[in-house]
């Protein structure tokens, strides 16, 4: 590499990082929830968005897009998700696409059982009544939920890994909405 090219590279990189540092004090946009779905589950996505309180700001992300993203696409997607207060994932396909990703936010997984996406804070799986628990670790803490009262103990909830919701008695989206509210209130 010639010294001229090296100097040019150093100058450009310095300007880029300087701009990034300058941008630090800018205000963040307010997104409460990032909802990650795939094209297969658009109807569920719409139903869940409808069920959430109107004062919550929700952004949706179609994980199928990762198929045409470049090789750092997962990292960029995670960068976006990190800006929300809570991350909600619908079904398994997004978990497969985001395999290996780790987020630093509360992570709520709805009707999925793949283990590839992690949270350094809290990860909880919500399954409907017909759940198959075989993909989960034998030491996973599970809890059956038949009414909203079962979600009252916040500390117990955060030590739970899997919630099995009796969907004959309680709508799954209502439980998701409650968990989101509790996460945002922390």
């Amino acid at each position, binding site marked *: 590499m010639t010294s001229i090219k090296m100097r040019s590279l150093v100058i450009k990189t310095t300007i880029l990082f300087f701009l990034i540092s300058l941008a630090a004090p800018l205000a963040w946009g307010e*997104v409460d929830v990032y909802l990650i779905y795939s094209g297969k589950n658009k109807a569920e996505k719409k139903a869940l968005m409808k069920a959430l309180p109107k004062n919550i700001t929700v952004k949706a992300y179609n994980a*199928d897009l990762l198929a045409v993203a470049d*090789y750092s696409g997962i990292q960029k997607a995670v960068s*976006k998700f990190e800006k929300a207060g809570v991350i909600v994932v619908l079904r398994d396909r997004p978990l497969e696409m985001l395999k290996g990703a780790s987020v630093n936010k509360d992570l709520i997984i709805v009707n999925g059982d793949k283990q*590839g996406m992690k949270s350094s804070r809290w990860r909880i799986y919500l399954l409907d009544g017909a759940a198959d628990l075989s993909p989960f670790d034998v030491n996973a803490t599970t809890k059956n939920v038949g009414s909203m009262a079962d979600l009252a103990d916040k500390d117990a909830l955060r030590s739970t890994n899997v919630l099995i919701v009796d969907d004959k008695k309680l709508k799954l989206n209502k439980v998701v909405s409650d968990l989101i509210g509790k996460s945002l209130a922390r």
Partner: protein
Amino acid sequence: MGKRKQSLLLGIYFLSILVVSSVSVGFAEDRFQISGYGNAHMMKHDGLPKLLDRTTGLPMEDPNDVFFQIREFSLFMDFTVTEGIIASLEIEAGDDASVFTPNYAYVEIDIPTVLDIFQSESLSGLTLRVGKVLVPFLSYNENKPNFRQNLMSQPFTAWNISPVVPSPPDFVGLGWSDTGGILDWYHEVGDAGLVDLKLALINGIQSDSTVLDDNAIQLSSGPTVRPRDGLIQNGHDATRDNNQKKAIVAKLSLISTDLPLDLGFSWYQGAWDPAGNQDLTMQGIHLNWLDYFWTLKGEWVTADVEQVAGTNLFPGVGPAGLNTSTGDYEMNAFYVEGSVIPLRYGPNGDRYIRLVYRYDDVDTNDRALFTPFDRSRQTFGSEWQFAKNTRLRYEYQDHRIDSFERAPGPFIAAGGKRNVTMHMASIIFWF
């Protein structure tokens, strides 16, 4: 200052500025993401011609000797500037970690978020990238790290035509990137899938000489020749535009909802010469079917080159019949690659053994007598993911030059053979 000392200082500089920036932005954990990959390989060729250094006239290292190299060590860095704006940088330590290259450096703007209209379904998928960007042409370029691929070696489509891979053995700056911008828009098509359209305006592939494919070598038997190896040399000067006419790139992809399938069409057009009078036009298609137990991938590309006939860049030092340009010509290449995983084991089945086969074909011939880059290749590969994010690979290649009966004497005298074989063992890791 020596090259290695410069590179070391550059590396220390980048790390320092990274730390300072991370601290200065605060909340670094939330705003800064870093990942990367690396690989090393051992190669042994047979059948390649021996070369002389064109400057000194001394013999170069025999290309058929065993060759060990740390090929790439790349870091991908993403900084969230503010909601909807991400600054991205890839720094690659290539060629035995002796040369640092920024493979891309750009700002990505999520337009609906910045304009606060992200609830709008029709405009929800619109982003703009500006800076040094990865060129959205075919599939391989945006998936070039080895951990995204099944083989260590690259297909001819990404080597001789689409200039993803630089000229070996000095592997520096893998990936075809260029200065400009990309507008990316996607739209969900009912429940069937989604359509993604990338439109790019870049400096483009260029040559300052009167011949586009102007790479030259000196055979150990004496003559200097243009091997006409395609566009290997022409895609890596991204910081300038030699004719002030921007190149246009478009890539349309379809992603299925129900099948693990994406396919697409790519198109490129730009003037390559300093006067801006002669165009390079390329079209290509790609397909990826990525199942849990097997994969099928393929690309096809054709390139039409406008070029003036009768120019000899090396009069007196090589055969005019080989070196003189022949006017407008067409290059093409394709590959088909299949892989199967006969064994999966370990936690969540993420340890496995994969078997791979790829067939490649390329023709860069501009209707001159002979080029060794009118050839086909079969690659037999295997990979073993034996630990988390770490794989061992072995592959065997058999190249066959299609028009070898027209090979000139000096090519054969320098050791060039009809069939070139190669054994390669490699280790790759990512984090």
